[in-house]
């Protein structure tokens, strides 16, 4: 019996007008998203490769210099920038991958824009979100899923077919399940086809290795779970309302709140509840500590008491300790805020989906943390490398070409999670989505049992 209902539901959907237009729309959007973002990734990847080549060429050039004085000058003048390879899964979920720079300076802060770059940049890219696969699923597919299902119960009631259907000896749970399965298939099938076509394009363009392929498959699976959550929500709304127009309005309201309001308000509320002092305040306090220490030190110098080295040492240590404590305080407060932001945003399945997808792609908030760690490590190692290089070049003429090997130049690297680890980390959000699914379905069932079909 169930199969009959499923079949009827699928045919009903496929023959409807909205199926035709939403099919075209979703196919176009998914394909476009994958196509555009994979080209964009290709650009970034090429940029990475060519900078990499340039750095190699510079090392080769240095190796060829023989005059020790010229060599010393050349080495003092260059610094090797670290390079971060863009993630291939950023095609699907761009996340922070475009925001975090490719080139990492060997010392000092990350280079800002030059004034020409700042004036000449394409501002539109900052105004609108990047249209990647995850964006299309997050925003467009959730709306389409709701649009497919909002009238599945109340619409039939309005037409009177629901009454007819239940006149047969059909248990209500079978009806609901049949409607869910049939409706979901008619949403998921065109989506899967579009996704498959997009993935084939990416695969053919050669941007994917085995690791990336797994991530693609996982993100696709996650999208199915997310779409199903919204589909089930729509089903629930349909069993709540008795008129299609009401159901539509409620569905739209919930969609607006969950997609556009809750995730965007979350960072704001988190900032209000768990404020973090601004970076400038911390810096100025550090400067104050430094000034105080300097004053004390100069006071000691003026007294001209010899043998005060211990006192000097103590003052320096104190100041350093205070600064470390301040920094630690800042980091801790920031961590609290970040966690609160994430947890508040998780009130909406959209945020859960976004967190899980970016985690699977390796481009989520965690990338920022890995990047900071990697940069600190790289700058530290580079400092050591440079000191050693100085010792090797000062005074003595290098004997042969191997005083500077390309392998010896420290490499910038950031922690790359294995697919299994990413999945592990994303599991909480996946579970949350599953819970939303189950909850909505159970509620829909409970409401439908008591639904007034006349």
């Amino acid at each position, binding site marked *: 019996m169930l199969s009959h209902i499923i079949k009827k539901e699928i045919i009903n959907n496929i023959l409807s007008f909205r199926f035709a237009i939403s099919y075209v729309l979703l196919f176009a959007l998914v394909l476009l998203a994958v196509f555009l973002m994979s080209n964009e990734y290709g650009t970034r990847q090429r940029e990475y490769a060519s900078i990499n080549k340039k750095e190699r060429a510079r090392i080769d050039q240095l190796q060829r210099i023989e005059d020790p004085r010229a060599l010393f000058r050349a080495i003092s003048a260059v610094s090797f920038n670290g390079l971060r390879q863009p993630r291939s899964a950023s095609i699907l979920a761009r996340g922070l991958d475009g925001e975090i720079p490719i080139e990492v300076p060997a010392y000092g802060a990350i280079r800002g824009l030059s004034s020409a770059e700042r004036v000449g940049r394409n501002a539109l890219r900052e105004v609108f979100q990047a249209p990647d696969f995850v964006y299309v699923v997050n925003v467009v597919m959730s709306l389409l899923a709701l649009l497919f299902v909002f009238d599945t119960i109340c619409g039939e009631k309005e037409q009177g077919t629901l009454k007819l259907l239940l006149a047969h000896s059909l248990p209500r749970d079978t009806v609901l399940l049949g409607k869910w399965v049939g409706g979901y298939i008619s949403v998921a099938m065109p989506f899967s086809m579009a996704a498959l076509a997009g993935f084939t394009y990416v695969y053919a363009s050669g941007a994917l290795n085995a690791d990336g392929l797994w991530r693609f498959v996982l993100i696709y699976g996650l999208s199915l779970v997310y779409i199903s959550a919204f589909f089930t929500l729509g089903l629930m709304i349909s069993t709540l309302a008795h008129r299609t127009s009401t159901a539509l309005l409620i569905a739209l309201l919930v969609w*607006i709140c969950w997609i556009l309001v809750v995730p*965007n308000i979350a*960072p704001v509320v988190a900032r209000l509840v768990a404020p973090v002092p601004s970076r400038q305040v911390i810096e*100025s306090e550090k400067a104050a500590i430094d000034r105080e220490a300097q004053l004390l030190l100069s006071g000691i110098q003026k007294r001209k008491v010899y043998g005060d080295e211990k006192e000097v040492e103590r003052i320096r240590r104190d100041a350093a300790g205070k600064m470390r404590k301040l920094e630690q305080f800042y980091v801790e407060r920031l961590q609290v805020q970040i966690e609160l932001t994430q947890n508040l945003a998780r009130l909406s399945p959209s945020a859960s989906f976004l967190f899980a997808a970016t985690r699977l792609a390796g481009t989520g908030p965690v990338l920022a943390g890995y990047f900071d760690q990697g940069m600190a490590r790289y700058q530290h190692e580079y400092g050591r490398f440079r000191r050693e290089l100085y010792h090797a070049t000062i005074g003595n003429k290098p004997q042969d070409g191997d005083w500077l090997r390309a392998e010896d130049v420290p490499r910038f690297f950031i922690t790359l999670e294995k697919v299994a680890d990413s999945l592990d980390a994303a599991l909480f959000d996946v579970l949350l989505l599953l819970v939303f699914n189950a909850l909505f379905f159970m509620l829909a069932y409970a409401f439908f049992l008591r639904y007034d079909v006349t």
Partner: protein
Amino acid sequence: MLFHLVRKELLDQLLSLRFAIACVLCLVALMLSAVVQARDYREAVSTFNMNTVVHRDAVLQKDDIAELQRGIEIDRPPNAMNMLVRGLAPQLTESVEVRGGGQLKFVRAYERNPVIPLFPSVDFVFIVGVIMSLLALAFSYDAVSGEQESGVLKLLMSYALPRDTVILGKWIGGYVALVTPFLLAFVAALTIGAFFPEVEYGLNEMLAILGLLALALLYLAAIYSLGLLVSTLTQLASTSIAVLLLLWVALILAVPNMVIYATGQVVRVPSRESVDREGGQLREEGRLKAEAIQKAEGASWDNEEWSEELRAEIAALNREVEVAVRKREESYLAQVRNQSSWSGIAARLSPLTSFNMAAYDIAADGMEQERRFVAALQGYSQVWGSYVEGRETAWRDLVEHRRDQGEQDGRFQRALKYGDYPRFKFEYMSFADRLELIWLDVLLLLMWAALFFMASYISFLRYNIH
């Protein structure tokens, strides 16, 4: 007669569920965003005040002429319009390092909370552009097709009513019902801003707020008319809402972002890195040429011993290379500008782009304002450079003077003070300038509104009422 129609339409809407939803949504979204933006603004003002004092003291405490050449830190004053429009500038206030000769160093804006960049910020522009536009469609999708379904339209047309009056009445009534909760919430949001003493509106800002409101109303009118148009094209309300939602998704959520990236595929720009590399190559070639000349002349590597002609020749060569490099750089920037302007034109396919861009410009937070800020900094950099030069000559004179009097060098280190250094003054654009920037977008929005309304009028004239 029109009055009756408007009244009927208005009453219909006021009693509906969607009006209640619109009221709640507008109030919650606008007021929440007002609280947040006002707090952000307050923080920006205090940061700005602190930084200006710190940076002024830093100059005043300088006692070595060499330190002046290391430049000065300049702060951008926060813009009171940031209460409503978050704008393009990455931060509400920022410090820029300025040296003489047009050297500016912008500090990279780096958001410490990595979750925030994942979601767009909720400001007035976002609320109107995305949320209110969806509500506008919810208000108009069944204006004609819904009445057709319920049979009211037939009854209505049985009176001696011209169709233009009917459609005009519907437009006015529905639009007023849509705009009323929005206006109320907007006033409430402004009132919240008034509770923050830091938020001070000058005449410019007042006018800009009015302009922003007018823009929002115009944009909503365009979207509302689109809803009316689709409603007159369909016979069933459910068809009309399906079409409209898909149109909305395409126009508001997909077209602007996708078109920008698609234009990037069509109008290509070489990568920043390749331009740098070409510059490097040009310099390298110049260096090789200079070496060749040097060898041909048989001069030694120490340039102290060069002859006048050789020196002039090499200097000319260097200048030539620098000109070539600058030319390459400028042609790259021109290409980037070309790409941006093409993507701007293409993205204007969606009224949202027009609205967003015009709103940014009228809030003095768009690209033109960025340009003016950078230009002001560059102008200041020249002023600063000549000030430093003046101080240097004064310093040298002083040194010579005192040396004549037989003093030791170290004694007069602190003799010069820099309290009279030129201050950086920066004003946001005047309202007239802002208006000049947005007229094209305003025209576009007007055109959309007029086009949609006229199309809906024509299609309603031919509407099959049964």
